[in-house]
């Protein structure tokens, strides 16, 4: 019963966010994110129809659509990457290297598993696949957030909300799916509620932070950046010249 209530609340919140995005014209600013949300909303409505009209096929239908849900989640990560690092070309370059590196590692692992793994059954396959997809998303998110923190990239309320909301949901997904794949854990009712509760929390965060358009703070003009950087570089060179005396001190000690 509680699960049903959660499900209805999710559908209602998704509809609210989508309607508000059209009203406030925010959907154009974060198109990939709202495509993801629209897909998830339609999936939820389809699942409701299938559960009502054809309950016997609900379980396989759920896993097929859950794979879509996880796959479209990469659109959120692309949206974060696009908006967070478009003003920081250096950090964006490092992020691209990191993203390609993770993708290459995933492809290698999948290929290795396909070549060397035992015969797998459908029941465990979809859950394990979703778990692995979410884990890769968690790694990508952690990398992007680390870059944002390290380079002190300025972000607006919208982007912060998208990042924190989706991170909370992915964190809950990875933990619950990892434990859920253990024998004996999958049948416990409590574990089945972790993902819906986390997703509802993410939706509520997005409802608040995406209420209106709030862009990332603008950076200075290019000429001012160049001037500030030269000033900082000159000051740093002077600081390094003084600090170069540490070389002698280190040798003496």
């Amino acid at each position: 019963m509680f699960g049903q209530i959660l499900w209805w609340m999710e559908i209602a919140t998704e509809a609210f966010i989508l309607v508000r995005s059209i009203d406030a014209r925010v959907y154009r600013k974060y198109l990939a994110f709202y495509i993801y949300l629209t897909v998830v909303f339609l999936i939820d409505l389809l699942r409701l129809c299938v559960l009502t009209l054809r309950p016997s096929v609900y379980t396989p239908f759920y896993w097929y659509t859950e794979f879509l849900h996880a796959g479209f989640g990469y659109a959120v990560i692309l949206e974060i990457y696009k908006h967070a690092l478009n003003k920081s070309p250096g950090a964006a370059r490092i992020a691209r290297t990191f993203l390609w590196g993770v993708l290459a590692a995933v492809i290698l692992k999948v290929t290795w598993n396909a070549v060397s793994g035992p015969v797998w059954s459908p029941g465990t396959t979809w859950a394990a696949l979703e778990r692995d997809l979410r884990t890769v998303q968690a790694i990508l998110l952690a990398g992007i957030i680390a870059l944002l923190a390290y380079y002190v990239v300025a972000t607006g309320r919208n982007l912060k909300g998208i990042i924190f909301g989706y991170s909370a949901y992915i964190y809950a997904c990875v933990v619950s799916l990892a434990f859920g794949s253990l024998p004996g854990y999958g049948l416990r009712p409590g574990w089945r509620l972790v993902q819906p509760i986390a997703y509802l929390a993410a939706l509520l965060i997005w409802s608040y932070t995406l209420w209106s358009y709030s862009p990332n703070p603008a950076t200075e003009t290019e000429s001012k950046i160049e001037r500030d950087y030269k000033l900082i570089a000159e000051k740093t060179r002077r600081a390094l010249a003084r600090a170069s005396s540490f070389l002698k001190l280190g040798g003496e000690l």
Partner: protein
Amino acid sequence: MSQLLPYLGVSLLLLVVSALWARQLFITRKTRIELIVPQKREPTSGSTASHRDLGERIFDLVDWDFVSRNVPSEIQQMFLGERTILAISWLRRTRTRVSLLMRAHVAAVGQIADLHLATELKLAVNYLVVLTLCNLLIAWIWARGPVRTRKMVGKTLRTVARLRGAFEQLMARVSAET
């Protein structure tokens, strides 16, 4: 349960990184950090010692050799106590200066397209090593006093010199491009 470790590790990484970023968002008031450097002063006969000279003086054994031979043990304890406070203060100041330097670096190079990943990683690792050494030294000096930690201070200062050397190379390359 061991098959859970990679997944729990990744989720913990995401949680920690998100928490650190959230903390930074609450604490940071400025998006760009300027490196505040004291104005250069002309040397005079009674000028204040530089940061390096202070470090040499604090950890030098000449004063301790004199105190340990010529004064009662109560005065020796007072000397060690005062010198411990000075040493910890100097290390904290070194840590702050290196942190300011690093923050200025990331604020500046974030706008540059041609970042070198290897250099950035090297700087980040060296920075973490310096921070760790400074914190360990502070704890060690607090526990054992400055006299016994002289050798560890030498290692810290050599690591700081390596960090600054790597940073100088990066700045030289960046300034050549600008």
